[in-house]
């Protein structure tokens, strides 16, 4: 939650109403026009009830004042009861309707955003924090749907109230009515002014609050460092600056908030005062009854509610414009990587394809993958990969080695078509891979990342993610193939063990084994692996090693390799540095050259042996 709130900071307040933007957001309400109409109807009736109440009170008073002991009060009692029941029913209905509307719209916006996010390319995710995206689909969605559900109601109700009150007063006594209506313009102005102020000052409070949260977070995470540096006093001083800012901002907000209601009340009392004075004169002159005077007092005090509500709605809509903009940004972001028109046409005509062809009508078997002078840059002018050419034949393993940030991961991302090359071409059996179906191609890939990502579910379901229709036996079979079966069987719940958030109930090695099983189950034609660097105990290390050997057999494999055994067995070793392939060949060839690979190898040799000796223990 704290993560979501920390992204609220960027709220910008727009002072101009962006009609085009809201029209797009309003389109989400189109399926619910019937609900909207019903809601508007209810709002009119509610306003009617509220205007009727003071009128009823006034007429009772007139009746008893006039008839004394001969009064018949029961019809009024029945009338009041009817009004009470009617009002309760209306309240029940309108909360139900508005709730249903806002919930339905919330669902729809969220669904549409999620669906769209699934289509967006990787670059989009690399530029945005998960927390930022989460805030769009949670707090922004909630805010917009609440506005759509309630603001229409507020506006219709408010307008009806104002009209109803005005008409009632004009009919009763138009001169007195005009005198009372004088308070409306100042009421409107005051409401607008205060609500603007409060919008800004409460934002400042929220911002100060997120800084406080960050401060607490830091103090907890860095507690040992703080202690070892004996920085407690200084940290407290710095924190006190933050909490002072929070105090001042909150106080500023509170001063405005505390003034709003009293000012409104005072303005409304002017209306009451006018009624008592001018209305009193009328009563004495016989042109107004006491009951009507009471009606006027009742109606005049009801004025402030709709004005307050309506100005709140307007402020809320303007305040939510930033949310609307951000949601719209997500929805309108064009997926940069998707099937070309030609490919889509071929997929559409898939019935005519031969049975053994892929959905785009081309051969389903991949015999080789070729990079031709591939170049790529995440930011223009800063290439991370240039002139990269390589060929991988079926059954071959390509090991990518070299320093961090040299470009290994970029090669893999391009291979997986998470990104597309800006220069050169990537060919599958001689066909540009943009000419192939994206979904088909990616489903031929088996990918195991350095830090394996697992879902918070059972081990069984995590493995099954590789092939959704796999039977339980096939899941176990895959686990057995990668040697994961042993440790899974040792767990209390076996395959039904929950792996926890991000798989944190398992060790890194175990996670990697499950990720391998998942990839094996999907039976990919191209296998991509980023070996884990973090230390894994010797036992698991051996298991993983033989599992990897198993998996690589007979497939095209790209491995970002950290283990010597993987590298040594590779058919080709590419040493990547500074976005270029600086050496290539087999292990023996490269050792003999005594170049970059040679020094990488000797380093790795020492480290692996050190680790092994340290782990072996006496």
């Amino acid at each position, binding site marked *: 939650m704290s993560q979501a709130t920390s992204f609220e900071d960027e709220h910008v307040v727009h002072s101009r109403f962006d009609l085009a933007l809201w029209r797009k957001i309003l389109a989400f309400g189109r399926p619910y026009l019937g609900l909207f109409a019903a809601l508007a109807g209810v709002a009119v009736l509610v306003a009617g009830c509220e205007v009727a109440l003071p009128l009823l009170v006034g007429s009772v008073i007139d009746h008893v004042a006039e008839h004394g002991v001969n009064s018949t009060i029961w019809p009024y009692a029945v009338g009041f009861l009817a009004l009470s029941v009617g009002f309760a029913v209306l309240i029940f209905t309108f909360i139900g309707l508005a709730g249903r509307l806002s919930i339905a719209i919330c669902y729809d916006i969220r669904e549409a955003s999620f669906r769209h996010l699934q289509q967006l390319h990787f670059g989009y995710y690399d530029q945005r924090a998960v927390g930022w995206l989460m805030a769009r689909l949670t707090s922004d969605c909630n805010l917009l749907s609440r506005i759509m559900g309630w603001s229409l109601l507020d506006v219709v109700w408010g307008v009806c109230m104002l009209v109803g009150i005005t008409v009632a007063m004009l009919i009763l006594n138009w001169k007195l009515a005009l005198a009372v209506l004088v308070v409306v313009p100042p009421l409107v102005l005051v409401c607008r002014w205060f609500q603007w102020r409060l919008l800004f000052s409460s934002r400042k409070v929220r911002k100060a609050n997120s800084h406080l949260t960050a401060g607490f977070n830091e103090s907890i995470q860095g*507690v040992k460092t703080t202690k070892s540096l004996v920085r407690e006093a200084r940290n407290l001083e710095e*924190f006190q600056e933050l909490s002072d800012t929070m105090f001042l901002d909150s106080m500023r907000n509170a*001063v405005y908030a505390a003034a709003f209601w009293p000012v409104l009340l005072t303005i409304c*009392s002017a209306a009451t005062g006018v009624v008592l*004075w001018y209305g009193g004169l009328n009563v004495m002159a016989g042109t107004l009854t006491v009951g009507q005077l009471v009606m006027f007092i009742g109606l005049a005090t009801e004025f402030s509610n709709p004005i307050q509500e309506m100005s709140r709605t307007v402020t809320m809509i303007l305040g939510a414009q930033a949310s609307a903009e951000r949601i719209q940004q997500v929805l309108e972001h064009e997926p940069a990587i998707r099937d070309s028109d030609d490919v889509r046409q071929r997929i559409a005509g898939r019935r005519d394809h031969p049975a053994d062809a892929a959905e785009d009508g081309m051969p389903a078997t991949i015999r080789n993958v070729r990079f031709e002078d591939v170049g790529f840059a995440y930011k223009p002018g800063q290439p991370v990969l240039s002139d990269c050419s390589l060929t991988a034949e079926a059954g071959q393993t390509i090991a990518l080695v070299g320093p961090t940030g040299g470009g290994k991961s970029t090669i893999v991302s391009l291979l*997986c078509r998470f990104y597309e090359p800006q220069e050169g071409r990537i060919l599958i059996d001689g066909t540009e891979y943009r000419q192939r179906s994206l979904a088909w191609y990616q489903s031929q890939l088996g990918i195991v990342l350095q830090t394996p990502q697992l879902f918070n579910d059972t081990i069984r379901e995590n493995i099954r993610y590789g092939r959704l229709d796999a039977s339980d036996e096939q899941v176990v079979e895959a686990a057995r193939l990668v040697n994961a079966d042993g440790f899974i069987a040792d767990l209390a719940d076996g395959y039904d063990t929950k792996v926890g958030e991000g798989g944190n109930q398992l060790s890194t090695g175990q996670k990697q084994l499950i990720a391998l099983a998942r990839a094996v189950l999907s039976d990919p034609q191209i296998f991509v692996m980023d070996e884990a660097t973090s230390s894994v105990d010797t036992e698991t290390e051996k298991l993983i090693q033989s599992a990897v050997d198993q998996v690589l057999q007979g497939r095209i494999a790209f491995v970002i390799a950290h283990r010597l055994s993987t590298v040594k067995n590779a058919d080709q070793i590419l040493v990547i540095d500074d976005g270029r392939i600086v050496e290539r060949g087999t292990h023996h060839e490269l050792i003999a050259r005594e170049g970059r690979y040679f020094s990488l190898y000797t*380093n790795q040799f020492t480290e692996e042996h050190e680790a092994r000796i340290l782990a072996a223990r006496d």
Partner: protein
Amino acid sequence: MLWTHKYRMLWRQMAGHRLRYGAALLALGVAIGLTFVVPLIIGVTIDHGLRGKPIERPWLASIVTPETLRNGLWQLGLLIVALTAAAAVFMHLEGVLASRASESIVRRLRDTLFDRLQHLTCRYHDQAETGDLVQRCTSDVETTRSFLATQVIEIVRASANLLIALPVLFWLNWRLAIVSTCVLPLIVGFALVFFRIVQSTFKAMDEAEGALTARLQENLTNIRVVRAFARQAFEQEKFDVRNADHRRKHWKLYQVFSVYWSVSDFLVFIQMGLALIFGAAFVAGGTIPVGELVTFWLYVGIMVWPVRQMGRTLSELGKALVALQRIDEVLSAPVEQDAPDPPAGLPDRLEGRLAFRGVTFGHQDDQAVLHDLSFEAEPGQTLAILGPSGSGKSTIVNLLLRFYDAEAGVIEIDGYDLSRLPRKYVRSQIGAVMQEPFLYSKSLRDNLKLGRHEAPDEDMIDVANSAAVHDAIEQFDDGYDTLVGERGVTLSGGQRQRVAIARALLQDKPVMVLDDAFSAVDTRTEAMIVNFLRRRKGRATTILIAHRLSTLMHADRIIVLDHGRVTQQGTHEELLRTEGLYQRLWHIQTDLEDDLKQEMAAV
């Protein structure tokens, strides 16, 4: 826990601001008193002014006559405005005073919590979850704040309304007064019972929202896996299930709310209707005049709405008390205690003579334990520790920094028993670099100077050079002013370690501890830094935990640790001559040469 304890807790928090609260309540009382005059004025004017009824109450007769009322209608109107304006001033005063009190209380609460967090024992932090602690310090404090700022006042307002209105109503006409207030307890009771019953609905909604958010987070963080297996449709389906469940629970909540609001509004209407109809009957029977009915009617209107709110507010009280209790748990957790009688005349700077004598420490039942550990280091010496992970290396550092205290045995620094020295004093003598160093979200400059604020920039750049991080820092657009962390750049593990080493070097303490401080630094850079440390030899007693022999070999003494016991110790030369872990590690080099020879031969 006694139920009164919670309220006492609340009362304690208000210390120092109780007067301000009192003033706020007083202002509120005055404001309510003033507003309550208005319905009286209207009633009296109607009865005696407009309808010309003779004034019977003597006190009223002594103030006004029907004639003055008739002639001074405009003055009466003005009086209403003036009274309301005066009430408004007091209301504002009340609001500001109450906010000032509550905001001051929570500011103090936040500061206290922050300071407390820093002084809690490491054991406490080890078992506490960061998220939970942060929540206690933020959202629980916020719940307390909103309770102190608004809900306390709301309850007081509703009660004050009743307290002031009831006597007036009973004084005017006790029978009508009873009729006009008889539903009020029902309204409060309904709200209390209702919110207790529907708590499960709220919880279900919260859980559905949590599940939806969790699903979303899983999808977004694992988006690579989703793509890698082209599982968009599957994910969409899973998300839709949660989204629909959320919709259903949300809808339930609205249904519950529509019941609540319609029923409580109905009760409010009934209360007002009773007052009106019975009042009208009394008027018809001649028991009360019309104006008094109007007064009653207006009073009921003023009273009933806050009472309706009060039911809800009272049910929120429980939440605030729970929040306060969670805060109190943090505030009453154990903090680090120093021995009551520290040795007198401690020097500003110790020499750095270290000794562990028979130290035993059992971290947890089966983890990282030290058994009867003894070693010594003279000032300026370098002591290297080598051992497999989990052998107790870091525990030695934790004990030295007094994050924990040994269970048996003595740790001495310059002959002083560590456990008798103030913790802060001990820590101020040690420059420590942890395996996963923490950097604050400040500029690199501030981070480097954390341990010595007054250090000139030249010294800072010097140490940054020594720790081989100066060039990396210069690469950033803002150089040393670059912000680190969430709002700034993310440093790699190796860069963070090097910054932390530079930070410790700048501190220039008599004891320096490097706890696996090179684990993410590449071999060549490590060698550079170690060379610098060797040149600086003698400045500080250094405890060096590492696993590369080239880093350890120059130490004055090397300890090989396993399962919390010293298995070997001596100089590099001594250890090389003895069969054991150290020797085996040293022979890797020979193994490598053999391996390479084989590889070459195979070509």
